């Protein structure tokens, strides 16, 4: 297990280094180069040259990359072109909202998807199975931002059951601890805050959960179907074990392996979905910020975001992989 972990950590380091290289290349290739974006259109050549020197753009490419790397390590992504505040601060301020939303969504997706996929497999060929399979296919094929917008129109605007936007109702006072507002509300005893934050969370979380939910349902179903046909399940049956034991220890423990892998892969689409969902509900997270940055071509903000997402994606996948190694003894030994 230790060797496995070390190997994964090394792979992580390589991946991150490669990523900064890609990002550096990307940054260099941006249209016009940074000096043109920072100067008015009528700047003279001397002005450009001065700026290039000031920015270190006349240095050799490797020196520039080194400085780039150093800035990244210091979390210095520059200032947002639209707000003027440091990108790192902007991101840090908004991160809790995105974490709260993504966590809720993934909890919904796992909590509903695994039981649903299991049921569909057990009741194969019934209407329940058909419903789960076709529902998840449609879920995968529905653009997230459209689903989010429709949920908002129907349940918030027309029916008025839930709030249309933001994380709290206006005028609600709130004590911040972690930034996850439902949690904070419960911890501080401000249950009205927790409830209010929760109602704001419901629709975006459902929209964001749609694709992971669909994928997890499908994979769980396929995986359970595959495992129940395995010889070791027949062995378990030949032992006369209780159905609950067979289901838990022999079917689900094995069937979960591909599901865990897929959850890791889903994190990418979860971040993408968060950008889209947050912008529909003006949720005020990283996603909303990036939506704005994209529309306004705020490159420092975009770069900070890409790095943030890439790092968290790689790190989260490392965690998923380690837990996979924990679940599957074969992986632990082989590597």
């Amino acid at each position, binding site marked *: 297990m230790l060797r496995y972990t070390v190997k994964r950590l090394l792979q992580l380091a390589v991946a991150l280094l490669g990523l900064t290289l890609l990002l550096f290349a990307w940054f260099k*290739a941006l249209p016009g180069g940074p000096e043109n974006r920072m100067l008015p259109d009528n700047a003279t050549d001397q002005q450009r040259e001065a700026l290039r020197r000031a920015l270190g753009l006349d240095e050799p490419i490797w020196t520039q990359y080194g400085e780039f790397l150093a800035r990244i390590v210091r979390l210095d992504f520059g200032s947002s072109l639209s707000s003027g505040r440091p990108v790192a601060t902007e991101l840090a301020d908004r991160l809790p909202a995105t974490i709260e939303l993504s966590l809720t969504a993934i909890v919904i997706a796992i909590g509903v998807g695994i039981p649903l996929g299991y049921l569909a497999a057990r009741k194969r060929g019934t209407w329940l199975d058909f419903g789960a399979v076709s529902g998840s296919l449609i879920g995968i094929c529905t653009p997230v931002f459209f689903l989010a917008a429709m949920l908002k129109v129907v349940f918030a605007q027309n029916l008025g059951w839930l709030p249309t936007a933001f994380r709290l109702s206006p005028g609600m006072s709130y004590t911040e601890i972690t930034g996850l507002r439902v949690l904070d509300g419960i911890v501080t005893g401000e249950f009205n805050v927790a409830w209010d934050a929760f109602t704001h969370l419901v629709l975006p979380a459902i929209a964001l959960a749609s694709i992971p939910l669909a994928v997890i349902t499908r994979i769980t179903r396929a995986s359970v179907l595959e495992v129940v046909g395995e010889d070791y399940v027949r062995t378990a049956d030949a032992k006369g074990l209780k159905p609950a034991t067979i289901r838990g220890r022999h079917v689900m423990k094995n069937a979960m392996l591909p599901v865990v892998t897929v959850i890791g892969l889903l994190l990418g*689409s979860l971040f993408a979905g968060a950008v889209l969902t947050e912008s529909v509900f003006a949720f005020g997270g990283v996603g909303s910020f990036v939506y704005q940055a994209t529309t306004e071509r705020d490159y420092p903000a975009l770069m900070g975001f890409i790095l943030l997402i890439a790092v968290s994606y790689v790190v989260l996948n490392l965690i998923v992989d380690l837990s996979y190694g924990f679940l599957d003894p074969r992986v632990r030994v082989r590597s």
Partner: protein
Amino acid sequence: MTLAKIERLDRLVEAGVRARHAESGSLWRQSLRRMRRSPMAISGAIIVALFLLVAILGPWIAPYSPTAQTWGGEVFLNRNVFPGPRPENWFGLDHLGRDMFSRMIVGARQTMLVGVVATLIGFAAGALVGGLAAAAGTFGGRWGGRVEAVIMRAVDVALAIPMLLLALSVAALLGPSLSTVMIAVGVAQIPIFARLLRGSMLAQAHSDYVLAAVSLGVPKHRIVLSHIFPNSLGPVIVQATLVLATAIIEAAALSYLGLGNPDPGTPEWGTMLADAQRFLSSAPQLAIYPAVGIIITALGFTLLGEAMRESLDPRLRRQS
């Protein structure tokens, strides 16, 4: 990218190859026969065929010009209340007084183009990268092995970047337009295709008939080009079908993020859907038509792709 996933991917590829060896007769003919019995494949094929038909014949079927603001006056007078379905406009009018039905029909072509071009970019570049890696690794000796290792590590790094981010970065480089969307979505697919083709080619390279060809002295480049490569395409073509569905959805998302060309002359469903968000509370139908179009089309390609995959993979076939 993580080893566990890669191994799973490679296992699936291997399973497909094994199936081919286990059964006699042409692989594709057998798959076709199996697919004809699958309701999934049939419904997928019907949807895809209908979509292609509309995409090709669109401009000739559409009752009106998709760009003419024929009913502009009517729409502009009633600020943001757009007529719904009625005898002369089956799907009603859009915010500029254009016939929605015609826009949907003509828009199919551009939508198909976005999906196809994006998939082709990913497919071609991915096949080149993956094919090179596999060929170098198999026949390139020690140096080839190193080349393969470097390429595949780079691919793994790229795989670790969420697709939308790749697309976002490309779009940031090229500025907003429909071709940006196509390139962005296509580039994001390169690593997946590269991995898949390499896995599939390696499985072929280790098969007995390649060994036989090598021992007969067939030149290596001939073996790669005329044996290994064509025989490895099965899983890649399946993936391409699935990617086509994703590409159409992702393109819509990029348009929504403002990276597409807002309302170009020729209609495209993703752009239409993104544009319609502004009028969602007053005229949700403007979003629903293109959304339903996208969902059904993506569903068709997904069904077809999944059915193809099942018919190629004996492990999956057994249970369904």
